């Protein structure tokens, strides 16, 4: 069953773009990452899924139910952790948790106590006395205490110290093992890489990629570092050679990566990154670093004619892939 499915989901704020024709699919039981720069449309997607805002067009289904038509039933089974946890002034942590449980018409005391203990959260403290991190803990307990089937987490670890982050991930991994779907929006790509099975990247309101995290990171591109007496003009010649070999005609991502193109714009971004062979070229002293997405034999043959002291070819990390997705038209092009 699909935990989340959107069909051409579009949201405009007046004339401003929120999200554009977003087609997203998250299976039940998945640990799904959702990435994008500020203003890409991550929060708009989440707020639409939670029924806080209404889509301009398209549909959003959560746990098989259309959010606009069956919002209450959806929210009964969803736990939401906002990026910024704000509560009513003057209330104690315990009162907030009780209010949240009462609004759900559930007795969550046992689970709430257990979570507070694990997160070292004092229920007697007043909300306004809490640090940002401790307020986040309250929001975590609110999101988890009713044992939801789907957890929507928006930048969940901001404000939490490393120990608490570890405990938090332990808790949500346990939930995920029990079958709970996790929809995890984050800027911290290492978190996505470490925890998520699949991930999607949004840019300017559109989904530009969606695949298994390993596949996204692999993406047939390699991070290359060459140290020695390098003739920079050679890179220009390599570029020409790549073009002649017709790599550009393939367009978009290299075949076989399994990457899903979001739409026409995403495809354009993909082709911008990978068809040209060399990206993110940087010279630092006697070292040259770049992302290479062409024929590796071509690269090795070309480098063979140079005086090389050291050469390393490695997988790029997800952050590099992510940066290149949204630097389309910028430095990365």
């Amino acid at each position, binding site marked *: 069953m699909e935990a989340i499915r959107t069909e051409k989901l579009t949201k405009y704020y007046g004339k401003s773009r929120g999200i554009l024709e977003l087609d997203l699919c998250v299976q039940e039981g998945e640990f799904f990452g959702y990435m994008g720069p500020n203003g890409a449309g991550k929060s708009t997607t989440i707020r639409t899924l939670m029924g*806080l805002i*209404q889509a301009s067009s398209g549909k959003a289904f959560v746990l098989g139910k259309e959010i606009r038509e069956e919002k209450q039933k959806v929210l009964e089974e969803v736990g939401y952790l906002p990026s910024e946890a704000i*509560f009513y002034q003057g209330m104690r942590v315990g009162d907030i948790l009780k*209010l949240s449980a009462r609004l759900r018409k559930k007795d969550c005391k046992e689970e709430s106590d257990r979570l507070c203990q694990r997160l070292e959260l004092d229920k007697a403290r007043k909300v306004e006395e809490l640090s940002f991190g401790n307020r986040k803990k309250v929001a975590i307990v609110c999101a988890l205490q009713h044992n939801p089937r789907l957890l929507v987490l928006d930048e969940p670890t901001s404000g939490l110290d490393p120990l608490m982050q570890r405990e938090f991930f332990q808790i949500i991994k346990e939930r995920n093992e029990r079958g709970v779907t996790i929809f995890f929006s984050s800027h911290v790509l290492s978190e996505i890489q470490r925890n998520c099975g699949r991930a999607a990247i949004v840019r300017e309101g559109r989904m530009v990629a969606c695949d298994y995290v390993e596949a996204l990171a692999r993406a047939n591109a390699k991070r290359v570092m060459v140290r020695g007496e390098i003739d920079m003009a050679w890179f220009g010649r390599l570029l020409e050679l790549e073009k002649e070999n017709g790599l550009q005609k393939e367009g978009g991502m290299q075949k076989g990566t399994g990457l899903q193109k979001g739409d026409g714009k995403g495809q354009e971004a993909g082709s911008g990154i990978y068809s040209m062979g060399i990206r993110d070229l940087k010279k630092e002293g006697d070292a040259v670093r770049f992302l290479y997405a062409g024929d590796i034999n071509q690269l090795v043959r070309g480098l063979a004619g140079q005086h090389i002291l050291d050469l390393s070819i490695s997988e790029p990390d997800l952050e590099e892939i992510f940066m290149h997705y949204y630097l389309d038209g910028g430095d990365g092009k």
Partner: protein
Amino acid sequence: MTLVRHELRQGRVAFLVWAAAISFLMAACVLIYPEMEGDMGNLGDMFSSMGSFSEAFGMDQVNFGTLEGFYAVECGNILGLGGAFFAALCAVSMLEKEERGHTAEFLLVHPVSRRRVLTEKLAAVLAQVALLNLAVLAVSSAALVSIGEEVPWKGILLVHFAYFLLQAELAGICFGISAFLRRGGMGIGLGIAAVMYFLQLIANLSKEAGFLKYVTPFWYAEGTRIVSESGLDGMLAGLGMLYGLAGVLAAYVKYGGKDIQ
């Protein structure tokens, strides 16, 4: 009822301050009446013959020297203005404060329909307005009894009832406005209550501005008019209730589909 209880707890400090302030002023006014009555002499005639000033405050319509007339003018103004400000502030911030304080996100991701949120919040507003009026009435009645005068209960209760209607009307209108706002509700609420009060003064002063009686609830709730006419203008009060109802309906229509930022 979860939200009603929550709102009553959230608003309890403001409620206690307003209830105490209005009750104290009302009781103080009542308690000084016997002393004033003795010194009054022709003061009542003077108050009722100060031309436009008397007309504006309705003092030309009652005998200021009687307990009923004194109560209608002095206590009417205190309860009228104080109660109107409280009702307007309470209602106008009821929905707006959730967005201003960024708590709407917390509230609305729970499985509660927007309709239920509105209904319980409206109930909380009306409950606070009703409790304020009961508290003020209780304190004022105790003060009236304590001064040993013969209390004209009918007129006094009618004045209190009229002011309750006025507050309910303003609360309904302000509740509707609250659904459209994201911030700045307090200024608007106070402004509406104050403008309505001054419209009544203008309507009292000028016959040409008589149409304002269809606009401001202070006209039908004016204590001096109620005492002098021994009754409440049912048509105008009914119209006022319709205005309040229109505000509430606007809140349901707007808030049901509002994007929460």
